């Protein structure tokens, strides 16, 4: 190879495994450390240009700010760089399989983002006269119709802002219905395997929570439930499929028994992805169910929200649904708020939020639903269930599947830490999975299985990605069962090693304080 005039020639250098060489910056090539905005030495002051304000006589009533707020400002290049560098420290669905059980981490279609940003949806105010927002109201009404038809229920409340908010909506409707009957009751029954929001919500709605035991097949013990039902039981909160990833085959009997005892049935719809298009919860006798639009209907998780939790109701609960909601009157769509509610919906239990609900999530969900259609949605649940069963069967020789022998799972597969050697735990396995390039599955939930690992692949994973994940999980599971101590050091390749959560809770530092940070650096 000839050299050019500048002296450059290709050189491979050494291929020997590098020791952990310290860099001056602390960076490791594309893995970049990033300070807090409050720590940046050079701060532009602001990255937004404004024309000067006109000089006016202040009408602020003497409440003008006289102290600095102390907020740093970055120029646009600095800000873009700051947030881009931070984003690269996150795992995401866009990067790879995100196997969190009961979270339904499916692909978030970009068409959803385009539709949500159409000015006719994004740039309208909730209090505009309704005749100026008919298209928006129609979308909300249409989405409501789809949700009603998919669930086989009677009506829908669109306003709850997330799943837990929807759970509260359902329980408050149940409580209102019973009080209207002059039959207020004190107890709600919740399976031990339920998501934490269920008992929290029931307590908030003013109920005492009691557990329903599970049978050895991981389902609700119907006999134990029937034995407990009585005049003090307002109802049950059931997740179906349940949090062990199993369909409750006795669901219709459960609903019947609860109704016969004078109670009502709340269904947690977090696992709707397993049955959408194949089973209508309404056919199973339930009275209320929230739907997580950010799960089954693909609206993005966004690092912790926003979500949306519309609630479908049976005929019995429909009169108690909260305000506001959209109604079609002839050719026109109207918003039923406090004013008009008195006439036709006088038993509504009130209002759960300002304005009307998560329009930004409605547009995204509508885009998803129209894209899939009735045929596509049925395929969604089929592929979701097939993918989960594939994972279950391919791994049950190396990981203990407590309910694997009793039949197929639904959209999620459940394993336990049985057989792990050397004092290793589910946590250790999960941290090792991070090094393999995956976000861990849901850990230690449901509570009824020791060291639980709940895996929900969703339908948007190809067979190839499933096989890669299965291979990685097989490898770390084998290491766990062999008592491989190196798992305790995991993760070693992530932007951070294991973080000290005990210290974080013992001495909480929740905001940046100049003096505190300087001390820590010493």
């Amino acid at each position: 190879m000839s050299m050019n005039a500048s002296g450059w020639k290709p050189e491979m250098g050494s291929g020997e495994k590098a020791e952990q060489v310290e860099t001056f910056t602390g960076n490791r090539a594309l893995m970049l450390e990033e300070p807090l905005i409050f720590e940046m030495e050079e701060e532009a002051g602001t990255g937004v240009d404004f024309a000067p304000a006109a000089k006016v006589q202040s009408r602020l009533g003497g409440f003008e700010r006289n102290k600095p707020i102390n907020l740093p400002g970055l120029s646009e290049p600095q800000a873009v760089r700051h947030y881009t560098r931070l984003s690269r420290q996150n795992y995401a669905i866009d990067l790879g399989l995100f196997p969190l059980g009961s979270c339904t981490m499916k692909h978030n279609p970009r068409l959803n983002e385009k539709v949500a940003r159409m000015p006719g949806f994004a740039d309208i105010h909730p209090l505009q006269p309704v005749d100026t927002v008919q298209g928006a109201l129609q979308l909300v009404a249409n989405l409501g119709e789809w949700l009603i038809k998919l669930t086989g229920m009677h009506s829908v409340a669109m306003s709850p802002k997330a799943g837990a908010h929807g759970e509260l909506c359902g329980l408050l409707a149940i409580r209102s219905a019973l009080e209207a009957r002059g039959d207020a009751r004190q107890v709600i029954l919740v399976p031990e395997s339920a998501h934490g929001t269920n008992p929290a919500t029931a307590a908030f709605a003013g109920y005492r929570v009691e557990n329903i035991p599970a049978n050895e097949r991981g389902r609700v013990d119907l006999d134990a439930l029937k034995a407990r039902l009585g005049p003090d039981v307002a109802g049950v909160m059931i997740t179906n499929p349940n949090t062990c990833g199993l369909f409750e085959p006795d669901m219709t009997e459960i609903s019947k028994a609860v109704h016969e005892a004078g109670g009502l049935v709340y269904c947690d719809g977090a696992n709707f992805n397993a049955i959408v298009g194949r089973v209508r919860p309404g056919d199973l006798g339930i009275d209320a169910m929230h739907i997580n639009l950010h799960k089954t209907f693909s609206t993005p998780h966004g690092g912790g929200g926003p979500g949306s939790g519309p609630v479908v109701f049976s005929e019995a609960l429909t009169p108690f649904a909260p305000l506001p909601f959209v109604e079609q009157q002839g050719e026109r769509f109207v918003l039923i708020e406090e004013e008009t509610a008195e006439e036709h919906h006088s038993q509504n239990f009130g209002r759960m939020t300002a304005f009307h609900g998560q329009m930004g999530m409605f547009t995204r969900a509508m885009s998803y639903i129209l894209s899939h259609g009735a045929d596509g949605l049925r395929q969604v649940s089929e592929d979701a269930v097939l993918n989960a069963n594939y994972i279950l069967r391919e791994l049950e020789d190396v990981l203990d599947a407590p309910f694997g022998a009793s039949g197929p799972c639904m959209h999620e597969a459940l394993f336990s830490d049985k057989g792990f050697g050397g004092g290793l735990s589910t946590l250790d396995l999960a941290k090792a999975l991070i090094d393999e390039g995956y976000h861990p599955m849901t850990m230690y939930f449901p509570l009824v299985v020791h060291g639980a690992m709940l895996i929900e692949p969703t339908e948007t994973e190809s067979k190839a990605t499933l096989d890669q994940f299965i291979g990685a999980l097989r490898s770390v599971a084998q290491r766990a069962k062999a008592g491989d101590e190196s798992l305790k050091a995991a993760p070693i390749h992530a932007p951070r090693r294991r973080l000290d959560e005990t210290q974080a809770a013992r001495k909480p530092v929740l905001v940046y304080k100049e003096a505190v940070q300087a001390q820590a650096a010493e």
Partner: protein
Amino acid sequence: MRYLPLADSDRQEMLRAVGARSVDDLFVDVPEAARLSGKIEGLADHASEMSVERQLGALARENIVAGEVPFFLGCGAYKHHIPASVDHLIQRGEFLTSYTPYQPEIAQGTLQVLFEFQTQVARLYGCDVANASMYDGSTACWEAIAMARRITKRGKAILSAGLHPHYVSVAQTMARFTGDLLDVALPELSAETDIDRLLASIDAETSCVVVQYPDIFGRIPDLSVIADKAHAAGALLVAVVTETVALGAIRSPGEMGADIVVGEGQSIGVGLNFGGPYVGLFACKEKFVRQMPGRLCGETVDAEGKRGFVLTLSTREQHIRREKATSNICTNSGLCALAFSIHMTLLGEEGLRQMAAINHARAVQAADRLTQLPGVELVNDSFFNEFTVRLPKEARPVVRALADRGVLGGVSLGRLYPGAEALQNGLVVAVTEVVTDEDIEALATALQEVLA
């Protein structure tokens, strides 16, 4: 179908691997009577991107867009200019499609943003600590009332008449079920807030006084006077801020003595979105932190001694405490909190103060112009970017008539307080930095016509 990667050959192979003849075998636990043999009737089949865009685009075009007409609506949701980079950054897949940061080693992006967000909110509100967001201002307001009850162990909250009526309605709904007593009152169409009523009502049974700042009419109440009286009686002051930009011009509620400050962050980074998703802000004094609802992000170190961030104090929360949790909230408003933080970082204190100054100046100019119209009286003495005028006739039909003329002229009190006769001639007008001289002139002209 474009979002479903499995090929039929994959499905066949996988069915063989799980020992099923068809996917129906996997649904064996579903009772016969509940099984749908085919797709649900009466619903359309799948559609291409092009078709979906067309259908939904048609619905979108039926609406009058705030950015395309003279626009003066506020009352808890405000139109501000959001810098272009905000929307690009929140759409990065690592932010958009990430999850709650339960595995902190691979979520430092989200966690560091939350720490910065908490710090920004605490400083804006003049408080010691803030959480990682609530759904919106109205639910944050209720959670503050519930928190005040837990702290003081008293069951009566006094709500100022200037609190947004939707926020009042949410609190009343929840209080019906929790047994909290709420002392509420309708506002009066006058320059004075109901501060006298509040001061007179505070007693030994009061858990908190809830005061909106600026209030629903845009009036700015003296929080420190209320704080003093509340504290003397062993009660808390909860301040509610529905327009974050106001804090670029007026003093923080925390420095005026508020114990808990909540509000709506929508003005910063989050567009109008027809009412949601928004972002609830929640801040308080350090001593109350273990009673706070919602997620909290805290600083710590990793096994190599490097600084990092984690969700902390989780024993307050539903996934640990279940029925004893401080709130049932799980998913909150992460992406909107990110948008808020990015916008606030781009603004900085300098930009926020400039933005606030422009808002106030435009509002003053608009108020002066509108009060030139015969019969239009300004109700407020004080205001930031929102004020109330008394019209010579009922405001609600006026608003509709203005809309017919292509002007979105404000929120009528008839819309917010139907049936409250004394308020029916009131119109709340919000004026932000997006409002131009031409817009103000268009509103004045149209209003003059409608009132004639």
